């Protein structure tokens, strides 16, 4: 048995290793997902909606004839962009909300209303085009789409973000920028230079050593096993929507605002969801709206669900970074300059959060706060490719891909250990340097990986004739501390204590696999220990349903592990008061004379006592109801740190890179549910190493057609491919509230790609800045084959 983490504060349930509360439902196949509900055996009249997909990277519908599709037996409705109920809809956006409910007039990115619900204009291969059908089977719906006659005006397209910025490039969104593809600066910035502190020119002039580094991240897909969709039906004037997007309340807001419906006439339900990793942050998808219209027209339940191919639908943004960093001989960093070129893909969605908003609001204050001279700028372009946005964080992996190697290179030039350089310079805005959390994280990682044995670049022994090994690491601030969640507004939680002393817990948030439901049950059990109960006596409500009345927490980020838990002590206090009131009546005593410990109510200083269960059972058999709705504390505490250390093996003959070991360290403040947290740390490496080495969306450059939107050619890691991962959980940093915690689910992937690049350099002495790292790139870097650029020159 491996050694588990040691909690700073011992609690009865929070912080303990135990099974997931939904483990049996999921392992037995009983857990229900959208796919398991939206069946004809459950909704006999159900119709299947299919939308026309663009065969072209960039095109316009010149004319449309749907008459043959309408006549196909089994087709119940054909809706097009020309229909008045579609044409009259407002322009919209794919990313209304970062993590709290927003309305149309308060959406995060009002500047870029670049989506229409069905349009004559298509901007990437697979884009939803102007026709959607509802039919009795998927096959009939598919056939109906084949019968739609479209005359396309095929437009020139552009796939590369740098080319997209050039004058003369085909303009993808003239309604946003008629002159080119560069997105206007975000509503949070005046210009492309979105952050400037001190004087970077002066800072670089003071430096003894200046390094430059470039990186190129790619559009990595979420590739959740459960695909996205919705089932909609009307009962009178009320619309019900089951969906695999994880934000019931926000989905309700989206539908009501787009269709001009009152909130009480739309009910949204989230059953179990087959993975998310941030894809719901582009949750304001047009398909909700056209599915609702189809259901209204046909008066039938209508299911719209992506096929596997269609579910390659949004991604982590491709971002190209250039970083310049300068330091004095003693290792004091004097200046840093980050410049990025962001690739939005066909729609802006949350791209500006990845390149600007979260870099400025999170990474800069979280890690770079003590660099005296700092400049950050970004240029973002539309391209005719898959849109980008949130994926396990937003923008953090991409900037870390240049930051980690820049720190590594700078330390090499200075002749310093990069661990020491990092501890000397980096920390968050609200605390001193050295930062206690960063130091603890890096020291733990260095110890576990055996950092002191690291050799000079390329100077290690050779294994099996051609293989070289190397060590590398990278680090980043974690995010989603309690204070960062204040915009969520009031957090609502309710418990009902039944007369038999069992509990129904309503802490609504969609269950996507993060384990926040287990965290909530454990914190609820801790808050109610006086009842003499444990997690087994608490039933959580698995489906989030806007009609149950409490606002759900958007399952966007890892703070879900504790934002609702923060309300549990308040709930516990309310329950206790109510039990005491009942007991006081039964004992004929004053409330002040009574107390409760471990399920027993007793009269202080006497032998007189009674179990809570007896008190409840002898009362009116009506459950005790305790509901809390309170905002979060605003005190700002900064954030803790995370790091990944890896050992890689590079085959210098084949160029193959293998990650042998990864040590993943997180300082969480409080670990709510260690088996869940370690599951994120270990499991996140399957995704992170995949993004670094094997996963890549491949486009045909001649047509813009994506070639591998499937699980055979988009190469996810399997059980055989995964490195051995050592998860390390620390509780050093302290936030606010009962748990003083910070999330970790996003940041489990943040540092791995950069750590792998640094480890490759340590193994073979060549730097690679582009991922995924493919064997030919390694061989080219080693000079064993010509690199691609020179190959292209020869042609």
């Amino acid at each position, binding site marked *: 048995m491996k050694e588990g983490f040691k909690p700073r504060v011992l609690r009865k349930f929070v912080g303990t290793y135990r099974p*997931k509360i939904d483990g049996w439902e999921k392992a037995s196949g009983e857990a229900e997902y959208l796919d398991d509900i939206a069946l004809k*055996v459950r909704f006999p009249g159900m119709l299947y909606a299919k939308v026309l997909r663009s065969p072209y990277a960039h095109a316009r519908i010149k004319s449309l004839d749907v008459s043959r599709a309408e006549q196909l037996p089994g087709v119940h409705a054909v809706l097009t962009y020309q229909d008045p109920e579609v044409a009259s809809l407002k322009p919209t956006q794919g990313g209304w909300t970062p993590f709290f409910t927003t309305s149309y007039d308060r959406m995060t990115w009002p500047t870029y209303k670049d989506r229409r619900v069905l349009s004559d204009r298509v901007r990437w291969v697979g884009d939803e085009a102007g026709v959607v059908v509802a039919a009795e089977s998927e096959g009939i719906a598919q056939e109906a789409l084949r019968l739609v006659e479209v005359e396309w005006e095929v437009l020139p397209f552009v796939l590369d973000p740098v080319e997209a910025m050039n004058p003369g490039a085909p303009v993808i969104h003239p309604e946003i920028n008629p002159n080119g593809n560069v997105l206007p600066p975000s509503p949070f910035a005046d210009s492309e230079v979105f952050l400037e502190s001190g004087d970077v020119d002066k800072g670089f002039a003071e430096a003894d050593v200046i390094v430059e580094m470039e990186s190129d991240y790619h559009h990595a897909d979420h590739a959740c*096993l459960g695909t996205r969709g919705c089932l909609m039906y009307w009962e009178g004037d009320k619309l019900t929507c089951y969906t695999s997007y994880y934000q019931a309340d926000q989905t309700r807001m989206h539908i009501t605002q787009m269709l001009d419906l009152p909130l009480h006439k739309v009910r949204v339900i989230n059953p*179990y969801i*087959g993975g998310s990793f941030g894809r719901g942050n582009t949750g304001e998808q047009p398909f909700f709206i056209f599915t609702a219209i189809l259901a209204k027209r046909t008066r039938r339940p209508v299911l719209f669900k992506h096929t596997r191919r269609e579910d390659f639908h949004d991604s982590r943004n491709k971002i190209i970074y250039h970083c310049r960093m300068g330091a004095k001989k003693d290792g004091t960093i004097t200046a840093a300059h980050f410049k990025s070129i962001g690739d939005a893909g066909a729609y802006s969605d949350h791209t500006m959060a990845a390149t600007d908003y979260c870099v400025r609001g999170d990474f800069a204050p979280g890690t770079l706060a003590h660099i005296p001279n700092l400049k950050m700028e970004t240029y973002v372009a539309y391209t005719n490719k898959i849109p980008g946005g949130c994926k396990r964080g937003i923008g953090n992996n991409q900037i870390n891909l240049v930051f980690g190697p820049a720190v590594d290179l700078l330390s090499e030039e200075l002749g310093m250990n990069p661990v020491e350089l990092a501890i000397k310079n980096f920390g968050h805005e609200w605390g001193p340097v050295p930062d206690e959390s960063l130091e603890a994280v890096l020291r733990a990682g260095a110890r576990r990986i055996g950092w002191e044995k690291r050799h000079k670049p390329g100077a290690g022994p050779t294994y099996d004739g051609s293989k070289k090994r190397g060590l590398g690491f990278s680090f980043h601030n974690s995010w989603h501390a309690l204070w960062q969640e204040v915009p969520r507004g009031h957090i609502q939680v309710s418990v009902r204590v039944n007369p038999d002393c069992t509990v129904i817990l309503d802490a609504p948030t969609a269950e996507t696999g993060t384990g926040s439901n287990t965290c909530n049950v454990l914190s609820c059990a801790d808050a109610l220990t006086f009842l003499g109960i444990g997690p087994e006596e608490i039933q959580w409500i698995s489906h989030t349903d806007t009609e149950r009345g409490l606002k759900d927490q958007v399952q966007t980020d890892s703070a879900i592990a504790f934002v609702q838990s923060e309300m549990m002590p308040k709930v516990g206090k309310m329950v206790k008061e109510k039990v005491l009131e009942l007991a006081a009546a039964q004992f004929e005593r004053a409330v002040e004379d009574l107390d409760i410990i471990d399920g027993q109510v007793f009269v202080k200083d006497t032998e007189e006592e009674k179990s809570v269960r007896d008190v409840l059972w002898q009362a009116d058999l009506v459950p005790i109801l305790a509901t809390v709705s309170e905002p979060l504390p605003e005190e700002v505490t900064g954030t803790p740190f995370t790091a990944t250390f890896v050992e890689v093996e590079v085959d210098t003959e084949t160029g193959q890179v293998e990650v042998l070991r990864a040590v993943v360290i997180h300082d969480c403040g409080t670990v709510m549910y260690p*088996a869940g947290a370690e599951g994120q740390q*270990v*499991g996140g490496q399957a995704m992170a190493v995949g993004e670094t080495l094997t996963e890549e969306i491949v486009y045909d450059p001649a047509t813009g057609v994506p070639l591998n939107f499937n699980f055979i050619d988009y190469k996810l890691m399997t059980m*055989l491919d995964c490195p051995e991962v050592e998860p390390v959980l620390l509780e050093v940093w302290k936030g606010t509230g009962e748990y003083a915690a910070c999330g970790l689910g996003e940041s489990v992937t943040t540092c791995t790609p950069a750590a792998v690049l640094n480890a490759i350099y340590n193994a073979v002495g060549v730097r690679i800045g582009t991922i995924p790292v493919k064997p030919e790139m390694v061989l080219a870097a080693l000079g064993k084959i010509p690199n691609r650029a020179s190959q292209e020159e020869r042609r």
Partner: protein
Amino acid sequence: MNRAIGRSAGGAAPALGTAERGEVRRSPSDPIRVRINGAWQQFELGRDIETSHTLAYLLRERLGLTGLKVACDEGACGACTVLMDGEAILSCMTLAVEADGHEVLTIEGLPEDDPVIEAFAEQCEPGYGTALQCGFCTPGFVMAAKGFLHENPHPTLDEVKEALSGNLCRCGCYAAIAQAVLRAADKMASQGRQEV
């Protein structure tokens, strides 16, 4: 939920591969007979199912046996794994008519206390995480593990990794899944129930 054949609490799983087979097909108009979770069922071609329907479609869409999931629909992920005559197969890559005369076991046919289900549900020892997060791939892993442990009741870790490398888990619970399978093997050995 319209489950054609419900789960029997605490009961033993129906023995596979030994039960009486349906008669050999006689004419194309004869119904298909499949023994599903212990009970023979008949399906008329053209009425109940089409020749183009997959076994996954028959089980999920017609019978409401939704434990198996269709995630890739092309044999790449293993989420649709069921046992046919005791062997793990991909039900999205098997036509319903191919199951004619065969014995199909879906996860609904396993008892509540099945050692593999329990091992997956319980997995939480330090250092590996849980054996499931979102749970969408889990029934496929459980059934693949059932088939594998039937063939190899005392596997090594490397054998488990090899055997289950055809199943994808995007949450990346692989390390904990491997531990759960090893634990399930121990449970089965100690319970003396190595039959599937």
